[in-house]
């Protein structure tokens, strides 16, 4: 892995991404994607790879990446969350690419990672079934051997960016246990149905496999470790996104509280509003600390805590911080915050959706205790 970069370079990276997203993914652009039901802007996706190299930032150098890790990616994800960028970054770069790396399958990595790093390939990771959590025991999708390969049959009801991904990494059972398979997005035996979503800036789809031709990735029966690890990395990455979203809500509220006048004074001079904003600030600070520590843990930095615990703590704290700030942001704005045109609802939608994406509060709190051995 490439040496972690210093604080000054991280700040520069953050500014670079922020400037890029301010130009390419301002509120008008996001609103236009929402109104046209487009998943994301392919031109922006291409520029992210070509101009900034974001997709390859955290990927291994031997497969076209820069070899950095979550401490660097965290900064990028925070800015993406802050701008509410509609993008396949979480599904492609965090979930699918991490699964490929963790699988240890050199051939699969060589086949797919360079395309992901170059912004040419999008991908997703289809795990959840049943109630939608990542519980491996709920998986009923199966894979059977056919001449020269595998065929997958089953249903994944909630797949992030499932309708558009060029590559689907799917967890299916074989006699040896849960295993990881690669399936092209466009193939016979795979039906993809886009779903109506709570979060209008992140697409979801139902994927139905009826003997879809698949390639085994990694060891047969070896998916449990991949799922556990990618879950931790996804929680960590999502936490960074959530911090960015929460910060955007705080910034919007503070700006509005300074400008909006009622009863002849700025509403931010009323303690009721002031204290709301201070509470939001405290939650954002706490969430950022949790997300940063989890990112350090993911990179195995020397004085970092164990990843399982840090990721679960970050997922819990950041989920709640974002939900809290997104709700309070609407309240600080009053009536204008409840309109379709105002971005407050998009953050509110993203906040609740992110909180529930990996199983929701009941599941993630229990997962934390399991990680702690309680």
């Amino acid at each position, binding site marked *: 892995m490439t040496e972690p970069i210093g*604080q000054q370079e991280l700040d520069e990276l953050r500014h670079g991404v922020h400037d890029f997203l301010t130009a390419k993914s301002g509120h008008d652009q996001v609103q236009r994607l929402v109104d046209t039901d487009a998943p994301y802007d392919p031109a922006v996706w291409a520029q992210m790879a070509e101009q900034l190299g974001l997709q390859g930032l955290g990927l291994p150098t031997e497969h076209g990446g820069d070899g950095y890790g979550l401490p660097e990616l965290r900064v990028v994800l925070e800015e993406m969350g802050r701008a509410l960028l509609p993008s396949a970054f979480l599904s492609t770069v965090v979930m699918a690419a991490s699964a490929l790396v963790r699988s240890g399958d050199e051939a699969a990595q060589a086949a797919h990672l360079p395309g992901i790093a170059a912004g040419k390939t999008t991908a997703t990771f289809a795990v959840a079934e049943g109630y939608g959590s990542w519980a491996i025991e709920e998986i009923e999708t199966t894979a059977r051997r056919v001449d020269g390969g595998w065929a997958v049959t089953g249903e994944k009801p909630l797949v992030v960016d499932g309708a558009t991904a060029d590559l689907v990494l799917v967890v299916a059972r074989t006699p040896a246990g849960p295993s990881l398979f690669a399936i092209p997005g466009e193939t016979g035996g795979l039906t993809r149905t886009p779903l109506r979503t709570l979060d209008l800036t992140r697409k979801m789809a139902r994927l139905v496999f009826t003997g879809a031709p698949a390639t085994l990735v990694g060891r047969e029966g070896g998916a449990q470790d991949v799922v556990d690890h990618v879950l931790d990395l996804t929680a960590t990455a999502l936490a960074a996104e959530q911090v960015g979203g929460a910060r955007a809500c*705080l910034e919007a509220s*503070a700006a509005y*509280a*300074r400008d909006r006048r009622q009863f002849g*004074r*700025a509403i*931010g*001079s*009323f*303690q009721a*509003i*002031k*204290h709301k*904003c*201070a*509470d939001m*600030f*405290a939650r954002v*600070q*706490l*969430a950022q*600390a*949790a997300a*940063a*520590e989890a990112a350090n843990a993911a990179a195995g930095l020397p004085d970092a*805590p164990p990843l399982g*615990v*840090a990721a*679960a*703590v*970050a997922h*819990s*704290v950041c989920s709640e911080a974002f939900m809290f700030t997104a709700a309070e942001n609407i309240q600080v704005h009053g009536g204008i915050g409840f309109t379709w045109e105002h971005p407050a609802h998009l953050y509110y939608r993203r906040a609740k959706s992110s909180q529930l994406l990996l199983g929701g*509060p*009941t599941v993630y*709190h*229990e997962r*934390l*205790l399991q990680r*702690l051995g*309680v």
Partner: protein
Amino acid sequence: MTAMTGNVHPLTPVGYKQLEDSHRTRTAGGVEAPPMPSTMDDFVRSAREFLDANAELRGGGPEIEWGSGADRIAYFSADPPEVAAEKVRAARAWQRQRHEAGFGWITGPEEFGGAGLTTVHEIVYAALEAEYAVPDTGVLSVIGLGMIGPTILAHGNPETRERYLPSMYRGETIACQLFSEPGAGSDLAGVETRAERDGDTWLLNGQKVWTSIAQHADIGMALCRTDPNKPKHKGITAFLVDMKAPGVDVRPLRQMSGGAEFNEVFLSDVAVPDSHRLGAVDDGWRVALTTLMNERATVGGGHSPVADALSLPFLVGLLKANGRLQDTAARRALAELYSLQTATEYLNRQAQRRLRAGEQPGPEASVSKLMYAQNLTRCAHFAADVVGPRLVADTGAWGAFSWSELLLSVPALRILGGTEEIMKNILAERVLGLPKEPGGDSSTPFRELRRSGTGGGTA
């Protein structure tokens, strides 16, 4: 979990420190060669050598385990007077010892016995010392050495500095803070204790309240009204008061948790020489700000008396003992509590890292304090929920009624060292740029302001 240092709590409900405390880094002013090693590595090595030679490392693991040891989950001290006196003696001795080794006043100027190093050295030393089982010096350091020492250095005349600074940092003089009054809590600039000049002497009359460690103190820094015809911030003067002088009456103030951690101090015709004035006449508010700005950031300091009881193994022990380990509601509450505690710890750890890298303290300390109070409050109510009716009365069960002391202490954490409300105002105004509440009391003469009568709430 991180706690306030030691058992001393400045109950000044004003929290200016974290946001303005950006000028604490001092370097040696003298021409002599520095007595302390100049590079950080050398500094760490010599601190280690001193600590290894004079103290034992703390053992790993919690000092309290579920079901064994003293059944006491306390935030405030409940030491009988002789035990408290013994702890003060031990604190003085350890302060003297580390001062002689050059670690007693790391940021102080050499002419008064300081080491002339930076705040970063001080933080590094504190983190090292925290690894060792040494006497708690909070009675000396939190208020006296941490806040009043720097104030005397900045505003005292040469005689006062020479007389008090070396002896304070040698552990000989304990200082307390005579700030809050019954009618001046969050609005500290509303102090009414009068100081009237009679030649070279001032006569002080009034009442101070929530005074930590006044019972042990040799000197107190008092804020007094010297001109009620000026606006409230403009008519205050600061003095150093001899706590043993005639007319100083220190009475323990029993708090709702039962102990008496704080005091009321009555001042009746207490004579203070003009040489003991800090700063100019009527300029005491500026002097007080120096004191408050030096209030220690609580990040990562010290070993909390309740930390072990709030550790995960202890709380899991609590659930087990009450047959609730498989109860999903209790598990959820534990996970939420643990997440918040751990994230607060991460916040403190990152603040420490940034300080060590030479950055100025940020707003983390305020957030850390807010979270500390919230987490401890949450924990006390979590435990109460688990223990249930056995917290209503003492059935003798281990780890049951003992939670009552914490439950009765946690309301203080949202008040002391700056009420939550004042802290939030400061965060919103200084960090987020929200406007101040309009108010005319900064220009109106103090005597014309409507004020609470004495005996009312203070915070």
